[in-house]
């Protein structure tokens, strides 16, 4: 049977079919749907969980693998940075049962803070990298990955990109097969990485890499499609699809096993073709290694490491290289009308932004829906680096002592649990007096509404303990912890002001749930009394998508506002900023 599956769904299916037993992840676009699919369709056979962060996800997965279960950790590309500490030494210990680390990279930064190429982690950690080029391979390669992991006693980096994750294609479906493994067995020389043991293991890892190189030469994961020998192309991942379509007649060496490279095969391929190219997204990962092996090859000169490739960019590159006829097609920037993402109507973060704006403080920001507060008209977020960074930023600005305005740290509940707790403890310990605001909407909203250790539900839908943020902050040594209603602008502003002025570490926590997840919240809508509205624009400046300019104008020709009743959730932030009380509850018949 064939099904139309996204790359993410296909990976979930692969984990199920090829005997996966344990999976752990922290959500992150574009990887999130992999575990959601497992929890939804395969939870009777495959355990799936949200870990508190990626480091924890990988460590749990390692434990499960040591303990004899085929295991998979899943994260977005920057998540691997968080998990890099266990990863680098996991390479030394090797695995118990097969272990796969899925890294979902995001060329073009569709929803990320950088464009890093995680194939580099394969080389850095001396572990094999698999790169599927469509949904079918995304499923099939899971079997290869488990087998390679077990055969070579190594974790396998399974590297996908947004285009693989979120494109759908037809996939042949099979039955679940399982493999028997024993449970954990004591083996300190392998599992206890004290220096003496680790040094021995490093030797083994160097030898393992040599064996993997031999494997790379033989595996059908790397295949040559012979065509016209004037042009030879080495490519992998989704770039293969672009190259195949752009150059239907060329010879292609398609790499499914992207590290270590099959250098002999590449040499043979190179010797058969007149001109050799590498077509790869992001870094010149293959290109530099091939050049280092003394093989002449061209790549980044024609196929830039900036943003995603596509058929047109690949064609343009080959035209420029003089091996394809035609004129390059100009890729236009579609700048007609910007539609920047905005906080939803009724979002509890809006009141917080408006209050902070009033107080004229710097806001060191973090990663979550509240980061949208950086955009106009709110423009209240002043830094955003990586998850959990807001607290350290505010602390550092204070300690640097050169900034007049106060800095307040702002982060969400999921982000606080992910990597804010340690930063807050560090602030208390080092006598920081900054205020940390936790925008607690009781969900991981930005990535589509996932549970976390504060929501009382697991990924598999069970009830569980919920961390109490107030008690947690108290336990870290923060004496001043205040909870506010972000729909109440006056209270929120006053409490924030008091805590910002305080000469001690303090925390302010908001208490309204996300209005989208886990379920939609909609109260009575409001409307604008056009008689009273003076078109002052105060309500426009809270940046609510339910509020727009109406046909009615004031005498200066400025539009009065109107509210879309279908979108308005009745949060009343606009009511509270309106200086003439023109916004009132909509009378419903």
């Amino acid at each position, binding site marked *: 049977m064939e099904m139309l599956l996204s790359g993410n769904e296909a990976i979930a299916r692969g984990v199920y079919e090829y005997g996966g037993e344990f999976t752990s992840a922290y959500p992150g676009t574009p990887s999130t749907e992999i575990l959601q699919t497992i929890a939804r369709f395969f939870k009777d056979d495959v355990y799936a969980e949200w870990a508190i962060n990626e480091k924890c996800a990988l460590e749990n997965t390692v434990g499960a693998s040591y303990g004899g279960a085929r295991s998979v950790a899943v994260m977005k590309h920057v998540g691997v940075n968080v998990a890099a500490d266990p990863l680098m030494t996991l390479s030394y210990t090797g695995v118990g049962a097969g272990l796969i680390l899925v890294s979902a990279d995001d060329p073009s930064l569709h929803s990320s803070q950088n464009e890093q190429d995680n194939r580099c982690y394969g080389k850095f950690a001396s572990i094999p990298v698999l790169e599927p080029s469509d949904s079918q391979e995304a499923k099939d390669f899971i079997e290869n990955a488990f087998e390679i992991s077990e055969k070579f006693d190594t974790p396998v980096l399974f590297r996908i990109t947004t285009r693989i994750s979120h494109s759908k294609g037809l996939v042949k479906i099979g039955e679940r097969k399982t493999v028997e493994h024993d449970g954990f067995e004591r083996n300190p020389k392998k599992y206890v990485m004290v220096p003496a043991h680790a040094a021995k293991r490093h030797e083994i890892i160097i030898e393992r890499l040599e064996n993997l190189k031999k494997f790379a030469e033989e595996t059908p994961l790397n295949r040559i499609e012979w065509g016209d020998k004037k042009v030879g192309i080495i490519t992998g991942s989704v770039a293969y699809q672009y190259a195949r*379509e752009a150059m239907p007649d060329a010879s292609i060496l398609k790499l499914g096993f992207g590290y270590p490279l099959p250098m002999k095969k590449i040499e043979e391929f190179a010797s058969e073709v007149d001109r050799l190219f590498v077509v790869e997204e992001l870094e010149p990962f293959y290109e530099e290694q091939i050049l280092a092996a003394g093989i002449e090859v061209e790549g980044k000169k024609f196929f830039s490491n900036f943003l995603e490739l596509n058929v047109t960019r690949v064609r343009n590159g080959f035209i420029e290289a003089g091996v394809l006829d035609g004129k390059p097609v100009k890729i236009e920037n579609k700048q007609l*009308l910007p539609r920047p993402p905005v906080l939803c109507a009724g979002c509890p973060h809006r009141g917080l932004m408006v209050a902070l704006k009033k107080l004229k403080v710097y806001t060191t920001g973090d990663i979550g829906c509240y980061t949208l507060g950086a955009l106009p008209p709110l423009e209240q977020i002043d830094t955003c680096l990586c998850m959990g960074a807001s607290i350290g930023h505010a602390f550092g600005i204070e300690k640097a002592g050169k900034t007049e305005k106060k800095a307040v740290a702002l982060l969400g509940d999921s982000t606080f649990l992910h990597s804010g707790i340690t930063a807050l403890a560090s602030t208390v310990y080092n006598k920081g007096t900054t205020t940390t605001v936790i925008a607690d909407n009781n969900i991981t909203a930005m990535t589509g509404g996932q549970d976390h250790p504060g929501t009382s539900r697991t990924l598999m839908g069970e009830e569980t303990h919920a961390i109490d943020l107030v008690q947690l902050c108290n336990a870290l040594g923060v004496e001043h912890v205040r909870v506010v209603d972000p729909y109440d602008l006056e209270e929120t502003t006053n409490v924030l002001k008091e805590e910002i002025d305080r000469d001690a570490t303090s925390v302010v926590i908001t208490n309204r749930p996300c209005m989208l997840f886990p379920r939609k919240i909609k109260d009575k809508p409001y409307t604008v009394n056009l008689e009273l509205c003076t078109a002052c624009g105060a309500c*426009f400046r809270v940046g609510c998508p339910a509020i727009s300019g109406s046909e009615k104008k004031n005498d200066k020709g400025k539009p009065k506002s109107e509210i879309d009743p279908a979108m308005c959730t009745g949060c009343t932030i606009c009511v509270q900023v309106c200086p003439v009380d023109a916004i009132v509850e909509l009378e419903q018949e």
Partner: protein
Amino acid sequence: MKNGTTNILIVGVGGQGVLLASEILCEVAKIMGLDAKKSEVHGMSQRGGVVTSHIRFGKKVYSPLIPEKEADSILAFEIAEGLRWIDELKEGGTMIANSQRIVPPIVSTGKFDYPAEIEKRIKEKVPGAKIVNAFAIAKNLGNTRLVNTILLGVLSQSIDLEEKKWLEVIERMAPKNTGEINKKAFLEGRQQ
């Protein structure tokens, strides 16, 4: 239509049902016995951003994205989005646009204007463009969420597949208890 691949680009704004429409289109290709791929980027779309979905079908499809200026059809769920993407249409391609306007909040802050005379500008570029008021039709049918199936109905006129098969797929893919009304909406669109 290189290598016999059909390229359809659906564009709109988050929340308009672009993704379900493209899903239905892919299922249709599947029952036509063709290889099919589709690609869209989720993520920020839920927060009012631009949504595009690329659907490709034929004997063998490689890239999940349509190359620039090679769309056989563009189906725009929102009129300004139609104008934004119109240059992706190949010579002689089919342009279908919903006349509905969705004005982003940024316009009310006075920083940007919603573009003027969009329908005229679309017709200048593609004289045969078909502009339908799918929002009004949906309202008449009693549910503004039907915009997507109405527009699929319009598009279906240019795809070689019997009506019965379309209706089967819509019945199967429509949200619970909305099969009948979605089929009705589809047929309305098919007559435009």
